[in-house]
């Protein structure tokens, strides 16, 4: 491997117009032909730094050199011209277009004269290089996420990128897809490509990268060669030694007193907007003092099932009982009032980004803060919110800040704080630690355990098997809308679950 830096970023600072510091003077260097990891918790500034490199945001201060030459990007198009490409967490493909149309569209922005027929040739050439074959006539939305991601990579390569930035690429992938992605990345490295890999997962850093830059709170903490450090050392650097509490809290499990059924789902089917049956005759029960872990690859009907319980989606068949009461025909607000609480996987759904913390705090508990004239008692909202902010350690400059300015972890804490302060009997929570840093993850999982131990029920939907095993008292696996198996985690080893997830 050559030791020539292909990218140098010097003294990068980024201060947002609202005064928030994202980067506080970062030096960053990548050698040609290496896989370089950027490790850090959420809000450490990893993505901001890379979006600056990609020309998407402009730094407040600092200089960027590509191949030793100083550059000043006015937009991603300039970065692309320098051979830098970025693959986002959320894909930028048009779902209703075919693969060819998507590739054509992206090539068109590089070369106005390109013809649709040329696409096939170029796509095959690059496809062979990374060992990826696909029919270009497939419509993107019909393809699995992992394949869409490969198309995204292919697209970036076809635009002539020699330096690839990947932003948490595995957050949407299943374990098998992750393995395939790593294969592609290694092949690219062999062909001389440079890869920058953003993540907060230690295992991926260890397994993939040559060197790693560790960031914390807008600063670079350290740059190390990956094979010279252990996962523990990486973790320490990432979260800072003073905060390093890796020990999992050990909450004593109370002996179950009386088994009471909180939720009973009887033969529920749900049809989505396009008329596709997403949930097929599901039978499930949740008891008090229990976390039921619902495992499965995303998009197998979990969301629809959760929404059916919350009342957001109507069921096409079956009944739902909550504490013995048939709630199938009740609307969302009535169900929330009865004590059902739902934390969806998408924070943009549970929060209104351009409203402040105070306004977001009452989204699901409006009734509680209204007087008889239906006037909202904002002062009481503020008082309760302030308590919740302290109790859940939500970091914010002010309660009047729009929640879009909070980091992902703090947004998630705010959602959980809001839902917990409603004192629900049943919590449906979907991917609760998705995208969270280690500290927040531990914290959220502890909260869920405590919630369970206070004798209430949790439906935990997660595509992260570690999380399912760590928290669940019982496990159910959903696959193409059907519950394929339920059982005790002790009797269901991961291989078996993996089998049921994948069949």
């Amino acid at each position, binding site marked *: 491997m050559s030791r020539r830096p292909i990218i140098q970023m010097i003294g990068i600072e980024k201060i947002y*117009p*609202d*005064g928030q510091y994202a980067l506080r003077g970062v030096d960053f260097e990548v050698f040609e032909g290496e896989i370089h990891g950027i490790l850090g918790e959420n809000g450490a500034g990893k993505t901001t730094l890379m979006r600056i490199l990609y020309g998407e945001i402009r730094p407040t201060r600092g200089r960027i050199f590509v191949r030793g030459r100083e550059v000043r990007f006015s937009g991603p198009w300039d970065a692309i011209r320098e051979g830098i490409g970025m693959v986002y967490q959320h894909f930028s493909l048009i779902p209703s277009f075919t693969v060819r149309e998507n590739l054509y569209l992206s090539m068109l922005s590089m070369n106005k004269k390109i013809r649709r027929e040329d696409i096939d040739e170029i796509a095959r050439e690059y496809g062979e290089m990374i060992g990826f074959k696909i029919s270009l006539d497939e419509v993107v939305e019909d393809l699995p996420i992992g394949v869409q991601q490969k198309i995204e990579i292919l697209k970036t390569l076809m635009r002539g990128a020699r330096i690839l930035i990947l932003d948490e690429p595995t957050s949407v992938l299943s374990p098998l897809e992750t393995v395939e992605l790593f294969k592609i990345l290694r092949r690219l490295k062999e062909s001389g490509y440079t890869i920058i890999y953003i993540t907060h997962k230690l295992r991926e850093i260890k397994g993939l990268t040559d060197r790693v830059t560790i960031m914390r709170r807008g600063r670079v903490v350290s740059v190390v060669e990956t094979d010279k450090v252990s996962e523990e050392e990486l973790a320490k650097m990432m979260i800072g030694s003073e905060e390093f509490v890796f020990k999992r809290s050990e909450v004593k499990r109370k002996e179950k007193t009386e088994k009471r059924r909180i939720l009973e789902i009887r033969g529920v089917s749900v049809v989505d907007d396009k008329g596709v049956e997403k949930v097929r005759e599901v039978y499930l029960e949740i008891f008090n003092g229990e976390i039921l872990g619902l495992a499965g690859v995303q998009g197998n009907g979990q969301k629809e099932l959760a929404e059916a319980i*919350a*009342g*957001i989606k109507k069921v096409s068949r079956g009944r739902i009982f909550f504490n013995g009461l048939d709630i199938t025909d009740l*609307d*969302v*607000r009535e*169900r*929330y009032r009865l004590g059902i609480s*739902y934390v*969806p996987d*998408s924070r*943009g*759904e*549970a*929060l*209104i*980004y*351009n*409203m402040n913390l105070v*306004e977001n705090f*009452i*989204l*699901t508990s*409006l*009734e509680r803060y*209204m007087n008889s004239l*239906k*006037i*909202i008692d*904002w002062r009481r909202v503020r008082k309760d919110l302030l308590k919740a*902010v*302290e109790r859940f*350690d*939500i*970091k*914010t*400059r*002010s309660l009047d800040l*729009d929640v*879009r300015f909070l980091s992902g972890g703090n947004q998630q804490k705010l959602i959980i704080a809001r839902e917990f302060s409603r004192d629900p009997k049943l919590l449906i929570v979907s991917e609760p630690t998705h995208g969270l840093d280690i500290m927040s993850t531990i914290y959220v999982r502890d909260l869920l355990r405590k919630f369970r131990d206070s004798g209430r029920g949790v439906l935990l939907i997660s595509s992260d098997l570690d999380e399912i095993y760590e928290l669940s008292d019982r496990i159910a696996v959903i696959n193409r809308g059907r519950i394929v198996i339920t059982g005790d985690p002790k009797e269901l080893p991961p291989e078996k679950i993996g089998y049921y997830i994948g069949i």
Partner: protein
Amino acid sequence: MRKIFLEEAGSLYQRRALRYLLIFLEPMTAFAIATLINAFILYLLRYDPLEVYSVMFLTGYSDIHYLFIKSSPYIATGLAFSTPFLAGIFNIGGEGQLYVGALTALLASYVSRNFLISILTGSIAGALLSGLIAFLRVYRNVNEVVTAIMLNWIMYYITSYIITVYIYDPFAPYQSRPVPREAVINPDLMFIISVFTALIIYIVLFYTSIGYMMRVVGRSFRSAVYSGINIKRIMILSMMIGGGSAGLGGALIPLGTSPHVLDNTMSALYGVGFMGIGIGLLGRNNPIGIIIASIFISGLIIGGQNVERIIGAPPEVVDVIIGITIVMLAIPYILRNILAKRGVYI
């Protein structure tokens, strides 16, 4: 938590001061640019910009009393645009709702000889008309802008027809019979009613559950679905509040301004509803802002009429000046909204 508050308190206040300064600076800059563009246009048309401006601004805002009266219907139509806008519906039908409000209020005044009943009739009629637009949008997925534009014209001709055929004044057949003397209101009351309506809507929007739900629907449809808000109902309701306000504005015009009639070309009403769109945007879709914007624009309109009278510039020139001023002042706001949709927040 507390530590963080203390640490950054100083800079927080500085930032806040900066933000308020920006709120003030932004429209001033926009206004200055508008003035420059207008000066250039006036120069091209061979009018002396300084003379035009001096007439416009010195006479436009000199008679506070008249200024307030003039601004009253604009407050109402500004609210008619902004209230639905906050809930995510584009009410471009303020004009039609204004006509129907004026007509029904006039008709009601003949029968009831009572201003309160007339005003209520006008408001309800406006609300029902806008409710129809919202209903078609929500349940039939008909674009509200298209419906509203068509209904504006339908209402224009219906009103004109009714005036000419049924309620014409035998001595001046191009206009209606006047409002009965018992139902005429003091012009000052127009302003009081309008401002009161704006304050009520302000409270509804920011202090009641209904207003909260409207703002949630307007800002995040997904969050509204998630929290179980009845989106259809809220959208229709916001539109009806808007239409009711436009109807109110329409009712106030014949009841409060002499000669207390409507003519068959709607000269007292024409354009007041459309101006509400500009005023709503200018007032940053905030009822209090709308009051200020209405007074500001009314001054320009009054001053513009004097420009016509004293300098002899045609009304079109004055319209251009007012139009450019509104567009310039609305640009920062619209720009910010567009950028926010792309995830850039200024």
